[in-house]
């Protein structure tokens, strides 16, 4: 059987991590295809509901990444984001949603290599964890109903 290829969605800010990922490209550093990026103006813009949606839509893992503290293009968007993540992560953990499936990181526009590393290590983590069947079961509830 073929190896499990995790679906991983990345929410990144335009000014640091998106640019950093661009640098990964211009430096021709290779990484796994599993991760696909969605571009946001700022980590402060990233709504926790979107992370939830991602799992609901079948994501096995999520990367959320933006500017290092004090580097935010908008001075404090990432600080607000960080607080939101701290609270959100705590809640998900209580609910048994596997927080190991969400990788948060700071990747600056200069850290092309770090981005590749984040992607690859996340892909490996999710590979080990396997497909997010628990959540898929919950999300696929309706379809199953229909099929029966």
């Amino acid at each position: 059987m073929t190896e499990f290829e995790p679906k991983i969605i990345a929410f990144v800010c335009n000014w640091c991590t998106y640019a950093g990922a661009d640098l990964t490209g211009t430096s021709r550093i290779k990484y796994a295809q599993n991760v696909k990026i969605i571009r946001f103006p700022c980590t402060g813009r990233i709504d926790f509901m979107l992370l939830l949606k991602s799992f609901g839509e079948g994501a096995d893992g999520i990367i959320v990444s933006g500017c290092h503290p004090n580097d935010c293009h908008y001075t404090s968007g990432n600080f607000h984001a960080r607080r939101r993540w701290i609270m959100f992560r705590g809640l998900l953990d209580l609910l048994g949603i596997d927080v190991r499936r969400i990788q948060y990181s700071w990747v600056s526009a200069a850290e092309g290599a770090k981005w590749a590393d984040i992607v690859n290590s996340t892909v490996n983590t999710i590979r080990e964890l396997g497909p997010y069947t628990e959540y898929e079961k919950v999300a696929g509830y309706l379809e199953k109903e229909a099929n029966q």
Partner: protein
Amino acid sequence: MSKIGVFICHCGENISSTVDVVRVAEAAGELEGVAFSTDYKYMCSDPGQTMIKQAIKEKGLTGVVVGSCSPRMHEPTFRKACKEAGLNPFMCEMANLREHCSWVHDKSEATTQKAIDLVRTLVEKVKLNKPLFSIKVPVTKTALVIGGGIAGIQASLDIASAGHQVILVEKDPSIGGHMSQLSETFPTLDCSQCILTPRMVEVAQHPNIKLLTYAELEKLEGSIGSFKATIRKKAKSIDENLCNGCGTCTTKCPTKKIPSEFNTGLGMRTAIYVPFPQAVPNKPVIDKENCSYYQKGKCKVCEKVCPTGAIRFDQEDELVEIEVGAVVIATGFDIMQPSGFPEYGYGKYKDVITGLQFERLASASGPTLGEIRRPSDGKIPEKIVFVACAGSRDPAKGIPYCSKICCMYTAKHAMLYQHKVHHGKSYIFYMDIRAAGKNYEEFVRRAIVEDEVNYIRGRVSKIYEENGKLIVKGVDTLLSAKPVEIEADMVVLASAAVANPGAEELAQKMHVSYDSYSFFSEAHPKLKPVETNTAGIFLAGACQAPKDIPETVAQASGAASKVIILFSKDELSRDPLIAVVNRSPAPVFSTCVGCFLCASACPYQAIGEELITNRQGKVIKKVAKVNPGLCQGCGTCVAFCRSKSIDIQGYSNEQMCAEVVALLNND
């Protein structure tokens, strides 16, 4: 029904070598709502762009997705192309198939599949794009410059010479700032006042500059292009129009023993005074705290002797409101009083002074007319010790950062001393010599080699008096860490440069951020060094961090040019990717419930109130309103709004959701 055009770029072979671009174009063509899809070798090239324009016209496209390089590279290019073809530029999106795909993956099915996914994602987004139009903000072409030191002077002159009005506000009775206190300037040793005073006069005489001395900013409202500033003009107790600056009052004033701020306490001044001979404006003010009339109710000598009857004891502070389009903060720095370092004995021993005090001693206009004489007994010091980093780079007791100017001015001080006292001996205790700058290192070399200044690499542990001498105990770390003791006649402390006492308060008045040392923060440490995070407010000089004169002047001109660029248009046109609060039909009007937590989250104070009234003008609802002039489009408020009542154009909730769904459903 949207008609999307998809254009896949080969980028020569950059993309096509690992991504099957033809298949990507085909796959895109099958997507719902895609009316046209193709691939081409160089989309950004002229024929490539023409291809897009034609498709827009012929197929009547409602949106465009270009699958090529990073949008950070060519988004402007393709949006311009769309605009030229009559499509709203914001209906164009880019899928990053090069930096995020072809360059980071090997040629494989998965790579092509990823490219398809990325394109599909952007197609779904662009379907929900709405035509956007850049925001217009009217510009009041008057600049407010706060602080009349060299930074404020330079900025004012530049802006004024470009033909714009400038209002220069200075808290002291005269402009000139610290530079006017300096003796001679490194690395050229030209006299500070000789190069400064002409510019001061220029300011006073410039038709476009309105000078408000002895005044401070009280309040700042509004936003880029149209600020409203309230200035407090402190009562000078004289009628400036009548006063001809003859100076009789200052000579006749009986209260003569007030330590002169300008001479850093080394000289005295009267209660009604002009800070220094070349002051601009050269008209006196009365220092109420020390004037015997204001304190004891009698005297009025100045009034009696004034030939023009210009004295006004009953004068009161005046608040003036002005409309300005931009603000330049040039409030400069302050010198840390070394009293926190008892081991140096500053304040205890008269002959331990600060660098700024030494400037006054060395200045031809100073209390000793430029002769280096020690404060205690006026003797010429035979041996003088300079202590660099007196407070700087000292996390324990001083400030952790480097004050930057001390290495140079200490070298200068030693040099000046050697030039004035040929047989004298000078020693400099230092940590490192930081002489990075044009002709700076050479200058320090000169001090060491030609003027035989003794540099000792080490710190001073204690200074104390012993039979008329100042014993300086320190260590020479280069001589195998030997303790050294020098019997000096005078000690000069290069005390740290710190932010002005009022800096934080001022920053809060203007909603610009400041760092942990109360220096004003630039918008970006590298790419926006003169902007603040508040649009329309700029920084010049040492109020942002310690700076020497050349840097300060350069930054001031930089800030000025930013203002001039701003003033070059009658209207501001800004990217419309900003937040908006939704509107819905009555009786809801807007789903915003006015909790205003978004306002507290906004980094730019861009969110204000809007009162929704009925026909009778009765307020029915208070909702949030985004000031398009201030909003920078970070979207923090959007993610924060519980009722999803605030959304950001170009990155709307619908668009982002659509992207998530599209990206994850590739089957």
